[in-house]
């Protein structure tokens, strides 16, 4: 019967070796054109989605222009939020290691 302490030490050493051997995620940072394209789609799509939703709501609840105005502004805000989130993801990825931190809510509030 092997000594449990010895086994635990062996386990610890194995863990260490495993951690060292773990393939480091190696990802080239995306090209600037790719980043620009990403940010542009994130923003434009959100604005279009907000505007479209407002237009749809206006159609359903009579043609009150308030819906499209409010939803367009909210869509633009969501677009900025998307771009900030995408930037945070890129930062987390270029910093490397660990699951990408999707967002940091404390900074902007």
């Amino acid at each position: 019967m092997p000594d449990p302490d010895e086994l635990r030490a062996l386990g610890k050493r194995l863990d260490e070796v495993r951690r060292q051997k773990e393939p480091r995620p190696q990802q080239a940072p995306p090209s600037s054109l790719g980043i620009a394209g990403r940010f542009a789609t994130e923003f434009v799509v959100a604005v279009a989605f907000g505007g479209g939703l407002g237009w749809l709501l206006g159609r359903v609840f009579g043609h009150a222009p308030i819906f499209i105005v409010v939803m367009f502004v909210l869509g633009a805000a969501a677009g900025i939020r998307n771009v900030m989130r995408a930037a945070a993801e890129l930062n987390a990825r270029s910093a490397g290691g660990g699951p990408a931190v999707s967002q940091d809510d404390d900074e902007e509030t």
Partner: protein
Amino acid sequence: MQSPMEQFTIRPLLESNVEHHFHKHDFIFTNQSLWMCIVVGAASLFLTLAVARPQLVPGRMQSMAELAYEFVANMIRSAAGEDGMIFFPFVFTIFVFVLFSNFFGLLPGAFTVTSQIAVTFALACLVIATVIVTGFVVHGLGFLKLFVPHAPWYLLILLVPIELISFFTRPISLSVRLFANMLAGHTMLKVFASFVIALGTAGGVFTAISIAPMFLIVAISALEILVAFLQAYVFAILTCIYLNEALHLHDQH
């Protein structure tokens, strides 16, 4: 001369009208369906053959398949953590399908499946549906916290709709990015190719410079190969990032 957008037309290849109880179904097998079958068939064939007779020292096919496995596995581990690996089959399937569609689309005369927004949007909806289901299964109603940022309550009235819109634009931006990239690349190739013909038949000095857009096409083709891979990668990594959010919510605090 054909329009550069002509390559994206969907044409029926086989048609049959099936009378089914009360509804009349039009079953139409289009060039789109054909190329989807080709893509799925080629991907399945390649991966099956690659691991049919596995060897310790992998051959060419086997090492390509292993490379693809390692690539996707590393991507999931780095973006969604170790517990994201349960989604490996899902992400790998999406990655391989998009990658093969993009590459098959580059063959002369081929139809690019991913240049149709119907296809990319269906894929993106599948991803978001998986994210939503995962979120509710893992966290229950706590998943809704994803839409509630840390802020005073009077700001939440404004912030929650913004977060909701931001969440629901994801399938759109995911699908539009892939579709627009493939559409733009293939259109660009056709436009420059038409320059070669137009200049070449113009005579005189124009014929001599018609070689210039030709070189440009070579360069753009190389770029398109890169884009084909990059867009498949982006689609897969964003899937992982969204799944990570569904699995871990705001874990980092």
